[in-house]
């Protein structure tokens, strides 16, 4: 059993390395800017969903307010850049750190709540953040911030001519989030989290400090999501509160992990790889009329997948794998 587990982990790592290498080569063949754009978004959502999955999937604390950390990452980076001229790279780290600290500060009261009360609290706190930013004149209020163009450079993490640098950064972020998850899965934290998720009372009695485990998961998760937020802001060169902190965004972030397989290593990547291109393609091919057909298709698919595969798309693979094992 133990040997199988170690072998599976090694295989996961090899597969991930191969997929990352393939993805890195993809721009050589795909020159279409529209497709490249979709690839960047797919990688970004995979990274976000993977980060969300750490707290909500592995540790079982369902958060539908992660847009808060995403928004904090985006706003910290851009406020530091536009108001104080701090390079986005530092702003990104600052945003991540602030988000992690806020996540832990909120964790104190929040992690005493259970079930629906916890979920609604996460929604509500993100909504408060949204309203505050919408009314914060210095930060651009509801109009948001337009990031000034200072020319293409890695130093300023700004590229107008080509999307490729963004693509490689998104790929790196996705790999980082995946690798952190992979690494944590087999660490003592990973085992604590699963214990906390399955039965907090039993975990506590066996010496797992439930509260600290949740705090750790929240901090890692918030940090990574905030980095994603900083990236998104640089990528779009424009942010406003509704688009980076809205409730819809919290759901969009959770969706790939849920449809792919919540609390699994591959679920978020798989979910994002299918969901995001599909969303973008339906939006541009049948959504142009503004008549809502794209929404009907998109929503219908979410209903269908979540009902047909409650354990996510990864269960398709594990089922065939389980068959192979018994043979």
């Amino acid at each position, binding site marked *: 059993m133990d040997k199988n587990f170690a072998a599976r982990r090694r295989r996961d790592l090899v597969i991930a390395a191969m997929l990352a290498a393939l993805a890195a080569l993809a721009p050589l063949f795909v020159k279409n800017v529209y497709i490249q754009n979709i690839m960047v978004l797919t990688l970004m959502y995979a990274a976000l969903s993977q980060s969300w999955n750490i707290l909500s999937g592995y540790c079982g604390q369902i958060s539908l307010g992660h847009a808060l950390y995403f928004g904090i990452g985006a706003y910290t980076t851009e406020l530091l850049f536009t108001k104080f001229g701090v390079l986005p790279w530092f702003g990104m780290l600052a945003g991540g750190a602030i988000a992690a600290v806020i996540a832990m500060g909120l964790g104190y009261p929040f992690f005493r709540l*259970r079930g629906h009360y916890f979920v609604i609290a996460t929604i509500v706190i993100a909504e*408060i953040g949204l309203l505050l930013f919408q*009314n914060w004149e210095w930060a651009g209020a509801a109009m948001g911030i337009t990031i000034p163009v200072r020319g293409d450079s890695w130093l300023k993490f700004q590229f107008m001519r080509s999307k490729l640098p963004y693509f490689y950064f998104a790929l790196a972020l996705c790999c980082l989030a995946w690798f952190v998850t992979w690494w944590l899965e087999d660490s003592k934290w990973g085992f604590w989290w699963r214990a906390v998720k399955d039965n907090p009372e039993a975990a506590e009695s066996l010496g797992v400090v439930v509260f600290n485990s949740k705090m750790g998961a929240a901090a890692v998760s918030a940090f990574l999501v905030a980095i994603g937020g900083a990236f998104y802001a640089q990528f779009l060169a424009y942010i406003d509160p509704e688009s980076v902190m809205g409730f819809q965004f919290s759901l969009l972030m959770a969706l790939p992990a849920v449809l792919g397989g919540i609390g699994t290593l591959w679920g978020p990547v798989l979910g994002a790889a299918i969901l995001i291109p599909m969303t973008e393609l339906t939006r541009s091919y049948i959504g142009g009329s503004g008549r*809502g057909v794209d929404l009907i298709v998109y929503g219908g698919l979410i209903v269908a997948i979540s009902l047909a595969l*409650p354990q996510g798309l990864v269960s398709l693979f594990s089922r065939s794998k389980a068959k192979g094992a018994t043979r």
Partner: protein
Amino acid sequence: MGLLYGLIAVGLALIFGLMDVTNFAHGEFLMIGMYASFFLFTFFAIDPLLSAPLVAAALFVFGALVYLLIVRFAMRAKANAGMVQIFSTFGLAIVMRGLAQLFFTPDYRSIPHSWLGGKTISVAGIFLPEPQLVGALVSILAFAGLYFFIHRTDFGRALEATREDPGAVALVGIDKNRVFAFGWGLGAALVGLAGAIMAVFFYIYPDVGASFALIAYVTVALGGFGSVFGAFAGGIIVGLVEAMTALMLPPSLKSVGIYAVYLLVVFIRPRGLFGSM
């Protein structure tokens, strides 16, 4: 206004609160109710006040169908039941918004010249808008009716028993699906009623539900899951807090007070004010 939130929340209190099924399409149920009322008015010139029972009946059928076609299967999921419920109803909400855009167009609509619209009544020197007053009255009646229904009838007992232990109720001959389908129908009918009344004084558009749904969730949770009275109290508190915040902060921040009060309440009482779950 508080009683109006209560009216929107009462249907959710039944579905989310009592049956413990997450419904992320609640706001869209409200939206459908408003449109139904709007079209009955424009095409058949039936005043929203008269058509309200019709709208409620239509929503009853719709809610029961949603349960039978979607939610029933979501509840059957062995793993991640909570997430499956959240995202299957969220998907449904997106489909409903899409359908509304397709058939009703994204235009803002309103009902002009209804019996109640724009009229005010003077009570002891204070002018109160009539539609809101009727809404408040209906809200109190709806809560009283639901309270009676849950606590005094066999159906109410069957409903609570089914939530507690679906296996055991099957042994005493209660069909879980029939009980829950009826519960969903009733919950949808109540929000349909809310929609019919709100159609009189609110703009109607495909996304209208989203803004009210969140406050409805907060209202139910504030009062505590599993308590009809809690949801009623929650509605009144939410309304009062909103009015008070509006006095102190700019209007765009008025919801902040509601959210802050929710957090404060659950930090002190993690099961809401009157919650049993």
